[in-house]
């Protein structure tokens, strides 16, 4: 082999390696192109008859990008429950197939994935997306196709900007803002230093707090914003401190939220920090470490199932779910997001069970709206023609970070 041949050969090998590496990157994520099918291993119990057509449901989740911490547990919950439903015979003998698409926490990807699910896969309903921005962006496609959407995102706008096709499983921001402001009032606070993240969820909370604070005798003395990519909020907190706030209220869900309590400790701010249900996950407490101690937030009861009331239907559903989740994934769900996906899936599944063969997407939508008293993990759902969130303040409970975990308040 001559020198030039050897060099050329070496270059060729390097190219092969580079191409392999790129392929790996494409397969593995950020471009949001991956599809996973969740139909479990189970076969319908009445396999004696000829197998019925599967019911195909689509799910658009944020498995990568800024909201991957939320989308991951959601996918886990759906995978696990779909396998269980099929082992138990599917839905009226029809196997259930859920096609999960990744929107990479990106609005445009969410639209593209939804279009794909509807046009290529012919799904009967869409679960998702994880985030508010994506859920709202998908609406045009949903409306054009006329199929129901069950969003897993927590902003009020999703159900307030009412669309008869759109339902929502987390407690809306309106519910949580009311409960939280009530708590601030009860604690004797009057001056709120507000800090919110620059996302759909954060802006929704920011607008609600500003609108309703006065009803609780509270004044927003400083209104600050941070970006999900920010690494330091001492500037915003300095302004809040200077404005004479007696409590910091943080409406956020991204990982950067954990920097706020740390910065407060560094600045020597000894006023309390109250957060939103967006931080209802162990990751927040772990990242903020000692600074998390004493942070308060209101969320659903899954983090402390005894709050449902031992023996209640929701308690049984939640503890059984936690047990299955722990058995399947080796750890209990450390946040509320797996529960939102569970609720979203079963709202669709229960409606499908009640429908006869040959139903239309309009029938499915109507049937989901008829959901009444469904004991899910987020709470007890009762939809109506005007309420597609379906929960009440009773479904929320206060938590305080203590000893490195979320514990029940009081």
């Amino acid at each position: 082999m001559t020198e030039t041949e050897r060099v050329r050969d070496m270059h060729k090998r390097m190219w092969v390696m580079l191409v392999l590496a790129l392929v790996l990157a494409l397969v593995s994520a950020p471009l949001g192109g991956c599809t996973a099918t969740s139909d479990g291993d189970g076969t319908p119990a009445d396999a004696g008859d000829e197998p019925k057509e599967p019911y195909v449901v689509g799910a658009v989740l944020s498995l990568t990008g800024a909201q991957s911490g939320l989308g991951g547990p959601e996918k886990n919950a759906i995978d696990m429950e779909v396998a269980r439903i099929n082992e138990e015979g599917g839905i009226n003998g029809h196997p259930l197939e859920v096609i999960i698409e990744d929107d990479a926490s990106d609005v445009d990807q969410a639209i593209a994935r939804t279009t794909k699910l509807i046009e290529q896969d012919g799904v009967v309903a869409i679960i998702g997306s994880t985030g508010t921005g994506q859920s709202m962006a998908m609406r045009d496609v949903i409306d054009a196709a006329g199929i129901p959407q069950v969003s897993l995102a927590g902003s009020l706008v999703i159900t307030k900007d009412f669309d008869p096709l759109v339902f929502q499983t987390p407690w809306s921001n309106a519910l949580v803002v009311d409960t939280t402001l009530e708590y601030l009032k009860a604690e004797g606070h009057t001056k709120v230093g507000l800090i919110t993240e620059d996302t759909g969820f954060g802006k929704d909370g920011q607008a609600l707090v500003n609108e309703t604070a006065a009803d609780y005798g509270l004044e927003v003395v400083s209104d600050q914003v941070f970006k999900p990519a920010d690494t330091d909020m001492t500037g915003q907190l300095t302004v809040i401190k200077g404005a004479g706030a007696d409590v910091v209220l943080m409406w956020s869900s991204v990982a950067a939220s954990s920097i706020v309590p740390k910065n407060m400790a560094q600045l020597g701010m000894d006023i309390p920090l109250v957060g939103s249900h967006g931080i209802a996950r162990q990751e927040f407490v772990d990242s903020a470490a000692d600074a998390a101690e004493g942070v308060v937030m209101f969320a659903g009861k899954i983090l402390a199932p005894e709050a449902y009331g031992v023996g209640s239907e929701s308690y049984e559903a939640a503890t059984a779910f936690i047990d299955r989740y722990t058995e399947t994934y080796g750890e209990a769900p450390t946040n509320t997001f797996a529960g939102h996906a569970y609720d979203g899936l079963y709202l669709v599944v229960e409606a499908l069970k009640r429908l006869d063969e040959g139903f239309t997407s309009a029938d499915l939508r109507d049937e989901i709206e008829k959901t009444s008293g469904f004991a899910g993990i987020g709470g007890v759902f009762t939809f109506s023609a005007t309420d597609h969130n379906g929960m009440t303040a009773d479904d929320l409970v206060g938590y305080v970070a203590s000893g490195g975990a979320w514990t029940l308040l009081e």
Partner: protein
Amino acid sequence: METSELLQLAIAGLKNGSIYALLALGFTIVYAATNVINFAQGEFYMLGGMFAVYAFTQFELPLLVSVPLAVLVVAGIGMLFETLAIRPRKDAEPMALIIITVGGSLVFASLARHAFGSDALPLPEFTAGPSFLFAGAAIERQTVWIWGIVLVTVAGLTFLYSKTRLGRAMRACMQNREAARLMGIDTARVVMISFGLAAALGAVAGVAVTPLTSTRFDIGAGIAVKGFAAAILGGLGSPLAAVAGGLLLGLIEQAVIPFSSALKDVVALGVLLAVLFLRPQGLFRRARREKM
């Protein structure tokens, strides 16, 4: 607004600015050696934090060991990246090489997600303890570390460039790579070392910030934008200019916060655009004749 608040904002600006400065130095060093903007620079920042957390939690090595180890590993990754991805195409258009670095950035972020998961991972502060108080403003201990690291880095780089053989070779490459090669300088080695050095600086920044922010597989791109902006402000020239660009960007951001924290990034990047229009060579660099 009280003086102590202004001082606190200035401290925050200098803290963030120091981080931008370390990233800007990485951009500047690679640009000097190759005329390429390395968009994988932010991933070196992310990987620095990741490896430090990994060594600290999985192997239970003390911080004193995990931190330098992480920086060395990332420097190695930087050189490997250059050898495998950049060198085979070294004679290509800079644009082709820039696209390769964009691809590299995606590869690094994806691999990190698979290796370390998608959760934010924390690291304890280098020296725990309450903040120092200075005229009513608080300075965290970690911030003092960050400032110290920037000072040592700038001093080290200045020494490297002015006093060592390698540094002189790097400066020769900066001026004219072809001429440097004809003078007997091993330019391939200079480029590889430049990538290693830039990766190490990115990793140092990432490791120094992780105790304050935790780290995550997807933080590289966001911080790279800031570092890139700082490098452009500084003019992609001397290490001191890069540091000045970083500090200036950090201070501008904090200056906007009392008026509207939502507009912080908009104003900071607006200043960057204005600089590009009015002084394309950067704020701290004399206009140079177009390269032939």
